[in-house]
């Protein structure tokens, strides 16, 4: 993929961006932590004209997982003699009183895994109940769905179903009158699954350019150029810059697995609020895989955002990490206050490490 890092191409793309620059403030939002990583790592913001702003949206799945889900996972693994599996990113995210990593220090059996198939393997070798803390967007949800479909008879495996969906979140942000977005770089890997269709209605309804972008620096710059071109010609449509991986219809096998196992439901996004039809829950026929139904655990009221933390504002594109008075002072990756400073895909974590 070296061509997407080619410096001469980068320079040409920047030149083209300057040429087409409408010279008014343009806010381009992305909704993917991996895009933010590319932007920060390659210093792309500094290469762009000052009026073109790249802003983060709610593109970090563990940052938007509600505290109540973390609190539930912690209470479950503390109270019952079970094994909890989780993806590494989720491990240190603070719940209301503590995180999974702190809970593990006190003896709970919490295991960090790379893929859900490892959780199923653990379940096959033990009598204990194994619960997977299942977070992630449309990129991850099909892996969970396919494991459930392959292991329908497995009695000691269930999930805390915390999946969230990107297009409804984009729809929500575009509906907020106080959030200004001139175009979206749509998430490349989510789109390998869902394809281009879901963005078309957003581009039409809100008259905003939508460009699905890849993850190399020149992918991002080309996506920006494509958005600026749409702005210039006053056409708002969905375009696909990441054609090497994103098919128009996405991955149909994965979509079928997802819709077979899950159905959409309203979901709370940490720091943002409840967004209609923005999450997945298990369909009734898979209810025995639903840890919340399987285990009767009551949690007390949970606290999503600590006083002063601006994670919510940052994920809505209304603030940047440096606007937070705690940033880099009392909030650091070693002693994080908000979820955005914990996850490697969190806006504050990335800003801290690259600024």
């Amino acid at each position: 993929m070296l061509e997407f890092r080619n410096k001469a191409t980068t320079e040409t793309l920047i030149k083209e961006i300057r040429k087409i620059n409408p010279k008014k403030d343009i806010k381009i939002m992305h909704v993917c932590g991996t895009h933010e990583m590319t932007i920060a790592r390659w210093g792309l913001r500094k290469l762009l004209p000052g009026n073109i702003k790249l802003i983060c949206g709610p593109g970090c799945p563990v940052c938007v997982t509600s505290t109540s889900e973390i609190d539930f996972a912690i209470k479950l693994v503390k109270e019952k003699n079970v094994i909890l599996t989780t993806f590494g990113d989720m491990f240190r995210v603070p719940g209301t009183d503590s995180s999974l990593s702190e809970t593990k220090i006190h003896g709970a059996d919490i295991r960090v895994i790379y893929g859900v198939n490892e959780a199923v393997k653990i379940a096959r070798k033990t009598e204990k109940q194994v619960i997977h803390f299942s977070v992630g967007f449309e990129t991850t949800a099909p892996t969970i769905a396919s494991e459930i479909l392959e292991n329908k008879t497995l009695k000691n495996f269930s999930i805390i179903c915390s999946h969230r969906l990107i297009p409804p979140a984009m729809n929500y942000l575009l509906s907020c009158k106080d959030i200004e977005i001139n175009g979206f770089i749509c998430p490349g890997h989510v789109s390998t699954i869902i394809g281009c269709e879901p963005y078309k209605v957003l581009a039409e309804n809100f008259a905003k350019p939508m460009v699905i972008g890849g993850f190399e620096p020149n992918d991002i710059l080309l996506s920006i150029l494509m958005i600026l071109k749409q702005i210039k010609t006053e056409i708002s449509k969905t375009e696909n810059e990441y054609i090497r991986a994103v098919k128009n219809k996405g991955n149909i096998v994965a979509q079928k697995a997802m819709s077979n196992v899950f159905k959409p439901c309203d979901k709370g996004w940490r720091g943002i609020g409840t967004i209609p039809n923005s999450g997945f829950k298990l369909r009734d026929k898979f209810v025995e895989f639903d840890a919340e139904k399987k285990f009767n655990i009551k949690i007390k009221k949970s606290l999503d955002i600590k006083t002063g933390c601006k994670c919510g504002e940052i994920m809505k594109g209304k603030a940047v990490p440096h606007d937070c008075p705690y940033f880099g002072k009392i909030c650091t990756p070693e002693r994080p206050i908000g979820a955005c400073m914990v996850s490697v895909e969190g806006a504050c974590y990335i800003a801290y490490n690259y600024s």
Partner: protein
Amino acid sequence: MCLATHAKIMKIKGKHALVDFEGLKKDVKIILTPEVKAGDYVLVHAGFSIQKINKKEANESLKMWNTIR
């Protein structure tokens, strides 16, 4: 978390494949991309291949900027 990495399929074994991430060999599940064959490039996320990569199309988007000016 939506990080996905490119890999080349070396050998298919039922629902699994041995893939090569630029030297690092790993077993991944190919159940979400049943059409893939040895020699194909795929995107791997959380131990699953999630999409076949079209190497031919890799350069297409870079050519695209020529046409959108």
